């Protein structure tokens, strides 16, 4: 209900303004700081200057391009594998009744509640035994524990709601279950897959604990680890301009994606959480 008095309305819009500032200002300030070098950083200012020096130096002083490439490879692989396995599994979980289905769904939901650190030592051992320490495949495998459960869960929720007649007609015409998934369900799953795929992408892109623990060299690090470990000439002198420039570079694509897909994301989040 919009307040009816003038003062009430003014108060309402003031609150909206505070919400906007609260959400946007910290990132704006990071952008402003990313253009500052040297002693400019010692002074608090609010308007950007557009000096690109920091943006050049993070690519020349360290393998930041390589770090971005690593993050892109890991995130895309994680999304592709999660969606493929998720669509197949969600068909079985949503459209076929078999014994133990409820238990299986609860188990999958429980896995998404796992503290990441609870698999850390076991995963560390496994990754070393498989020879995947300090490599991207190791990170892709580790990320599955984070993305697969909610992918399966959201896609199952979505698939349960599709009408039963859809597949019955296809089965009468003699289609196999795999054909039904590919020809009947896949075309309808577009929105749900876009939402879960994007959420999985964000999770894999932002993942920090595994990437920090299972990589060793600068060249194998993903972006969050690279940013967390940027150091300056001395321990007490962090190059804040570089850190802010790196932060802006990895965040802008995410913000653009989120703004484009905001409705889908909210739908995916609520399907995953409210129905959980």
């Amino acid at each position, binding site marked *: *209900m919009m307040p009816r008095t003038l003062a009430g309305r003014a108060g309402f819009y003031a609150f*909206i303004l505070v919400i906007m500032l609260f959400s946007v200002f910290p990132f704006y300030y990071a952008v402003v700081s990313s253009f500052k070098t040297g002693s400019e950083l*010692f002074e608090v200012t609010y308007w950007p200057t557009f000096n690109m020096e920091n943006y050049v130096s993070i690519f020349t002083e360290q393998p930041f391009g390589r770090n971005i490439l690593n993050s892109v490879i890991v995130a895309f692989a994680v999304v592709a594998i999660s969606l493929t396995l998720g669509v197949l599994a969600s068909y079985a979980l949503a459209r*076929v009744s078999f014994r133990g289905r409820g238990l299986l769904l609860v188990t999958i939901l429980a896995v998404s509640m796992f503290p990441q*650190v609870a698999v850390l030592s076991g995963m560390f051992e496994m990754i070393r035994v498989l020879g995947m320490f300090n490599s991207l495949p190791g990170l892709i495998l580790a990320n599955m524990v984070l993305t697969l459960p909610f992918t399966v869960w959201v896609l199952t929720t979505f698939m349960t709601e599709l009408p039963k007649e859809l597949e019955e007609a296809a089965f009468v015409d003699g289609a196999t279950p795999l054909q039904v998934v590919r020809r009947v369900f896949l075309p309808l799953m577009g929105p749900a897959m876009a939402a879960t795929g994007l959420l999985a992408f964000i999770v894999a892109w932002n993942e920090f604990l595994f990437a920090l623990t299972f990589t060793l060299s600068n060249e194998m690090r993903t972006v969050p680890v690279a*940013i967390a470990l940027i150091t300056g000439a001395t321990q007490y002198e962090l190059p804040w301009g570089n850190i802010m420039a790196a932060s802006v570079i990895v965040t802008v694509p995410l913000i653009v994606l989120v703004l484009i897909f905001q409705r889908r994301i909210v739908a995916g989040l609520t399907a995953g959480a409210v129905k959980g």
Partner: protein
Amino acid sequence: MQGSELTRAKVRSALVFLAPMLLALALAAGWPLGRTLWFAFTDASLTDNGYSFIGFENFWNSEWGGLLEDGNWWQAVGNTLYFTFVSVALETVLGVGIALALDVPFRGRAIVRAAVLIPWAIPTVVSAKMWGWMLHDQFGLINDLGMSLGLLDQPVAWMANSATALTAIVAVDVWKTTPFMALLVLAALQMLPRDIYEAARIDGIHPVRVFFRVTLPLIRPALMVAVIFRGLDALRAFDLMYAMTANNESTMTMSVFARQQLVDFQDVGYGSAAAALLFVMVAVLTAAVLTLGRVRLTGGAR
């Protein structure tokens, strides 16, 4: 007859479809978890390959005490619980407030709703660095603003002081996660029937009363789910603390403690024991929530 044939064929292919996902989960979750729980009862370390079963000694022993007598561990437990309760409580209150405001139709609402998602989209490590810079003791925006507004007499070294460091971490988490909460609550609000509000308005009932008597009870199930998800998420927090204060004891959570033992001190057994305790805590809470949730769903609905 043909129907049951089809059913059996479907069940068979269902199992085939499930297999890759189950294999991936077993490999990425089941096996590593099992190994971690096993390591918790051993003296394994990264420095030598042999290890042996030592029972509950990592948890408690008469020689050096074990986890249950480790002051740092209890500090980590305390930090985690404090972080979880304070940040989730603040996020819930602020999230409901923002959701109520965004539920009102006004011009530019779509833009505000999109803007609110920005903190959520920013990687945790990046948020940590952004706020670390704003909270910088010499050149930070917060000190500058606080002093020019007369709120601070002198610059505060936010991250160096153990009391303010944890508060700062809570603040960053609130900033980052409130949007998520607000959008979940907003989704619940938009599913409420509008005619109740119309009736309440005609009867002249004060909006605050309407909120506590009508809105809150109606959105409570969705709100509870959001709070529980956030709470379980906060209990395992790692990124924010590590990126802001590394392995500092005064802000260390249980996850940071476990990883420090495991990686920095190379003590796989002891680190696994800490991770196992955290896992058991989260598992018990999750099981309780799932059971209570099911009881209410089946009992309440019919």
